[in-house]
């Protein structure tokens, strides 16, 4: 079948500072096809497409449409050439309605009459099978609704070339099916669809051709029908990489963190966690699956002491019975406090009391290793802030989703970021930067962080190195519980595997690891058990060694759960 060329790129190069994002890329797009741009994170897919959409301007190279060279300096130019892009991070004004967002920027379209616009939006939605209320405000919308607004926005402007950047990342499997159906309809309509993705199964399912990018270079473009998963992987990665994550069997598991009937409302009084119960065991990785915004973030933040609970219990258990207390975990003040609660005995089982002793003598006694816990430590973490949790001697580490906005301070250097958790240590009002600097140097070495030195602001590091710094710091404090939210998001393959390896090693050290992920393949390969969440509720708990993706996908979308979090044995 004869296909007409819609768009050509020739020799496109783009640099950011010293980073070469795209290197002499050539690409052809035909009318009436779905072209997948495949490549791992950071390979320059989005940058390349941004140059067609007018967000970036190429340093070198040319773009042709219907044989004529075009210059796209701004998104406006792109629209004039009937090109529209749906960005991964939606570009919508929250305060406006769907219709207002859709007509935004269309100045030469006559009088401002929202009624007409609403009608036209409904018409387009019907044609392609979308569901959308044009008068709904964006801040009231779900992610999938927002995406619909973005797509209709582009269609409303009469785009013939549609670029979708990672459109499925935030959708449920069912929503993905619906989206693909719409895309196929648009293809039949003669439109060119470009989807940027790093998910092989989607490429194979929906595309006609695949262009593979690796490290900013165009590797090849192949017909989807003539290729397979293995071949695509090889082209994407450069060499065959064992996709398997080494997973050891958990040993000596015991309950570490018991969550019971957690309820949480956010600042806008939305019920974000509903009766969440589960137990995290020491020595295993508990994966948490769910579409974005199902309450995963709130759950971890609640455990870390960052969210005021409505109701429920968070209990930390430490099997300390007959084990000596140490100053590594407990401050002297805390030890004295525990003593007043009669928490210790000596190796003979006789109760210990520090009453009337000097601090120096107490220190000596504890250091001798003869001050033992009478019972396991069971500590209620409910409504304690991170500082109080730390002061109780509980090592709870948390790698949040928002690395530079929460876990680290972008403008501070690596040393200063190392002390975020520990700067209060030491007497007096002045800071001690010696130990943090040593720790920074150690992490840079052991995790191979590429940086000019410890005095570099973390903002200047690449995504993978930022994450290594953050995870490195959180692990350095020998945690008992390690929570990580989307720890490999935006990381290249090598850094991702470094992180998987670190998590596994922590688990082997007897840490209770909680891992929130988005890629089901990774979750299934890395975790021991997987907790599935949907709409703030626990909708399932499965054994990661036997569960399937489909099974979990179904749980991710199930609206009501019968048995809350009672699923584990």
């Amino acid at each position, binding site marked *: 079948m004869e296909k007409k060329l819609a768009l050509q790129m020739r020799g496109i190069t783009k640099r*950011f500072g010293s980073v070469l994002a795209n290197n002499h890329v050539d690409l052809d797009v035909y009318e009436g096809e779905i072209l997948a741009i495949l490549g791992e994170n950071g390979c320059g897919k989005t940058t390349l497409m941004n140059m067609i*959409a007018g*967000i*970036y301007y190429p340093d070198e190279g040319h773009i042709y449409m219907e044989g004529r060279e075009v210059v796209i300096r*701004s*998104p*406006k*130019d*792109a*629209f004039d050439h009937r090109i529209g*892009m749906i*960005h991964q991070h939606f*570009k*919508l*004004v*929250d*305060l*406006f309605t769907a219709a*207002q*967002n859709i*007509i*935004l*920027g*269309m*100045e030469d*379209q006559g009088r*401002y009459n929202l009624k007409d616009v609403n009608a036209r939006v409904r018409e387009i939605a019907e044609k392609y099978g979308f569901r959308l209320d044009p008068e709904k405000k964006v*801040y009231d919308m779900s992610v999938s609704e927002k995406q619909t607004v973005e797509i209709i*926005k582009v269609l409303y402007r009469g785009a013939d070339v549609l670029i979708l950047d990672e459109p499925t990342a935030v959708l449920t499997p069912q929503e993905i099916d619906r989206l693909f159906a719409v895309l196929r309809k648009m293809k039949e309509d003669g439109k060119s669809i470009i989807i940027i993705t790093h998910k092989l199964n989607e490429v194979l399912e929906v595309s006609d051709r695949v262009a593979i990018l690796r490290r900013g270079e165009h590797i090849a473009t192949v017909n989807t029908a003539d290729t397979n998963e293995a071949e695509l992987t090889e082209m994407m990665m450069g060499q065959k990489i064992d996709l398997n994550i080494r997973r050891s069997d958990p040993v000596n598991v015991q309950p570490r963190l018991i969550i019971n009937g957690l309820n949480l409302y956010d600042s806008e009084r939305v019920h974000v966690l509903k009766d969440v119960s589960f137990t995290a065991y020491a020595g295993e990785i508990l994966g948490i699956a769910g579409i974005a915004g199902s309450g995963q973030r709130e759950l971890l933040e609640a455990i870390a002491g960052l969210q005021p609970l409505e109701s429920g219990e968070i209990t930390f258990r430490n099997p300390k019975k007959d084990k000596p207390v140490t100053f590594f975990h407990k401050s002297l003040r805390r030890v004295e406090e525990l003593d007043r609660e009669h928490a210790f005995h000596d190796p003979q089982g006789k109760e210990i009391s520090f009453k009337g002793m000097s601090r120096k003598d107490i220190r000596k006694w504890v250091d001798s290793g003869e001050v033992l816990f009478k019972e396991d430590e069971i500590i209620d973490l409910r409504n304690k802030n991170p500082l109080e949790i730390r002061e109780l001697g509980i090592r709870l580490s948390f790698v949040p989703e928002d690395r530079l906005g929460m876990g680290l301070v972008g403008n501070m250097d690596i040393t200063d970021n190392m002390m975020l958790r520990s700067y209060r240590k030491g007497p007096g009002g002045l800071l001690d930067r010696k130990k943090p600097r040593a720790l920074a140097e150690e992490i840079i070495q052991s995790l191979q962080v590429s940086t000019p030195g410890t005095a570099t602001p973390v903002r200047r590091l690449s995504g993978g190195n930022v994450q290594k710094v953050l995870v490195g710091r959180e692990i350095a404090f020998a945690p008992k519980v390690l929570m990580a939210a989307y720890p490999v998001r935006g990381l290249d393959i090598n850094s991702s595997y470094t992180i998987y390896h670190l998590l596994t090693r922590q688990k082997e050290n007897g840490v209770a690891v909680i891992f929130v992920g988005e890629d089901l393949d990774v979750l299934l390969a890395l975790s021991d058990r997987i907790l599935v969440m949907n709409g703030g509720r626990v909708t399932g708990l499965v054994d990661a060694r036997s569960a399937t993706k489909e099974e979990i996908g179904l749980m991710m979308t199930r609206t009501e759960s019968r048995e809350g979090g009672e699923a584990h044995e």
Partner: protein
Amino acid sequence: MNIWLDFFIDSLAFGATFIYGSTGEILTEKAGHLNLGIPGIMCMGGAGGCLVLNLIGKSGMPGFLIVLLGTLGSLAAGMLMGLIYSFLTVTLRANQNVTGLALTTFGAGLMKVLMKLTDPVVYLVGPKQLFRFPFAGRTDSLQRLGVLFFLAVAVAIAASWVLFRTRAGLNLRAVGESPATADAVGINVTRYKYAATMIGSGIAGLGGFYYIIDYMASQEAYLSIEAFGWLSIALVIFALWRPHLTILGSTVFGLLFSCSSYIANIPGVQITMAAKPILKMLPYLVTVLVLIVTSIRNKRENQPPASLGQSYFREER
């Protein structure tokens, strides 16, 4: 004479100064720019208009031409100040607070230098009656409402109409809420920012001119414009970023400000000298109160534009 009516009309007339100032500020804030240069801009708007009148005040031109040219002079001076601000904060992406403060220092200083070059007999004594033509010849307090008062009301209503009822207004609000979004749909962010800031500054400039030439119509009037500029910025909060509400807000401010002079005339009311500063403090305290109440209620539609104070650079990564 009805003292209550006088009091009210005087407050209305006084309030027009703030209507100009805060309508201008709202337009720039809607483009995402907190313009702390408004006091300086209002000063220069006053100076610009007065300089023009100083040139033509005794030329024997027809009255309406004098009014028109004076007003245009003021508008132009305000817009020029807006141009300086826009160039620094939009094109050069300078810090908005610091630029605004520097603009206020500059504008207030330059106005005082310029006003000393003018002759009040020329720019004020002759022209001031011309601006009061709508109620010329009346002897009651209504005569206080000059043409620039009505222009202020019209400008505020028109600004609201543009902001909330036209495509240009929709685009402008999008620029202030999320410039990246506006840019992605092909809105020329820079052009909108320049236009809103310059038009807003021109409008604000008229406030200074109105205060000198019409409301106070006195030689020393220009010395207090700067303070009213700050109050205009406060009024933006009071009006919840809606220009038409500045009419209401400015009247309230006007009432609070004028009451210290009127209260003594009310039969049966005794007022000490010491009470005057306390009464004059009221508008500021009320603004603080509004600020606190809106922050406690925290309603989405009543918040400042989301990108207020931040520069926009498309290729930010």
